[in-house]
């Protein structure tokens, strides 16, 4: 596409490209099993649901499990049904299966994800922070706004902490909890002109939380057998103090994401020389 191509030609080209893409996708869909036929019982992720991956791995090493093709789990792997509030000493005690995958089985993945978020936040801060903050032509928020954001900040902060502490029991976890806390801090920005959080403090807090994650992982390496292995008892499924180290890691992630997103918000509320209009 040249610079002087008419807009209509561009649009038609884009539409035809998208049509070709969609036709390709639908041809791929025809090969997929239909919604009612998709069965988790024939997929590997059922082992995550049944919290029995270790046994399956051992059987796979012995050539028993996957060698004969995938079969119903009852006949291949010894399995006792999980009852909420009663089952003890499971392989992974989190009631939320998605959490147990994200933090426990694929914890290394989450460490990479946190690193990516850290890099993004650092990049934003590097590009934007340190400019002089000029805020012309802005009305001072009223007293109601000021007091209201202060009061609601406390409630929002508490709610964020609730979300990431209960990450292994309810839908939620460190990332949504951190985002909730950052939204509370955004409210503080709206409540008062020239509000400045302690940027250095945020950075230090964030680094300490990230280090806590790595230290928990290293503890697993030295005390059990592998990096980010669970070294705490898993307890009864459904209790608050269960699921081993998932609670600790989610607290670390929640504080890290909260501090990181607050730093991003702080950097992004920079008014550039007022030529926006």
């Amino acid at each position, binding site marked *: 596409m040249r*610079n002087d191509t008419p807009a209509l030609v*561009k*649009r038609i*080209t*884009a*539409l035809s490209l*998208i049509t070709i893409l*969609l036709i390709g*996708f639908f041809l791929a*869909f025809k090969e*997929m099993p*239909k*919604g*009612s036929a*998709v*069965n*988790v*019982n024939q*997929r*590997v*992720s*059922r082992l*995550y*649901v*049944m919290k029995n991956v270790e046994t399956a791995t051992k059987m796979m090493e012995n050539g028993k499990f996957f060698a004969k093709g995938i079969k*119903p*789990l*009852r006949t291949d792997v010894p399995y006792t*049904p*999980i009852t*909420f*509030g009663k089952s003890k000493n499971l392989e992974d005690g989190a*009631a*939320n*299966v*998605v959490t147990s*995958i*994200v933090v426990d089985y*694929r914890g290394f*993945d*989450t460490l990479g*994800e946190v690193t*990516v*978020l850290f890099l*993004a936040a650092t*990049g*934003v801060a590097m*590009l*934007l922070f340190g400019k002089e903050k000029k805020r012309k032509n802005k009305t001072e928020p009223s007293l109601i706004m000021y007091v209201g954001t202060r009061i609601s900040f406390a409630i929002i902060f508490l709610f964020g902490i609730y979300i990431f502490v209960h990450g292994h*029991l*309810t*839908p939620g*976890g460190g*990332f949504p909890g951190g985002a909730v806390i950052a939204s509370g801090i955004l409210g503080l920005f709206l409540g008062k002109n020239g509000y400045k959080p302690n940027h250095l403090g945020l950075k230090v807090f964030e680094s300490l939380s990230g280090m806590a994650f790595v230290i928990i992982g290293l503890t697993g390496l030295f005390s059990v057998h592998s990096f980010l292995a669970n070294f705490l008892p898993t307890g009864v499924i*459904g209790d608050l103090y269960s699921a081993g180290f998932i609670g600790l890691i989610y607290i670390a992630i929640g504080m890290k*994401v909260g501090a990181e997103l607050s730093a*991003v918000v702080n*950097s*992004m509320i920079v008014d*550039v020389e007022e030529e926006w209009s």
Partner: protein
Amino acid sequence: MQALQIFLQNWIYLIGAMAIFGIGLYITLTNENIFKIIVGLDIIESGTNLFMTAIAWHPKAVMPIYTATNQLVVNGKVVSADPLPQSLVLTAIVIGLGTTALALTIAVKIFEKYGTLDVRKIKEAKR
């Protein structure tokens, strides 16, 4: 009625996800404003996430969380939705947020340097 039900159960989420993907791609390809391009990329990302959660789902699925009334395994068979794509989407959402923030920051920098967000004008200003 039966055909409509089968259609809704099997195809509606996949078609919706691909429609969102197509809308985002169209926005990205046809707009010249950098901000709108970033918005288009975000819409593409939403379509991809919806697609991944849709292939994890089946019509009789329950949520993959053990609660007092929610049984994930009935008679030795798993009845929940597939939790693995859902966890991948959880990762993808967070990374999408980070990349969007970085892209917007770079857009702010471009606006500071060239005084415009139009891709063509930036290209002309370079010469």
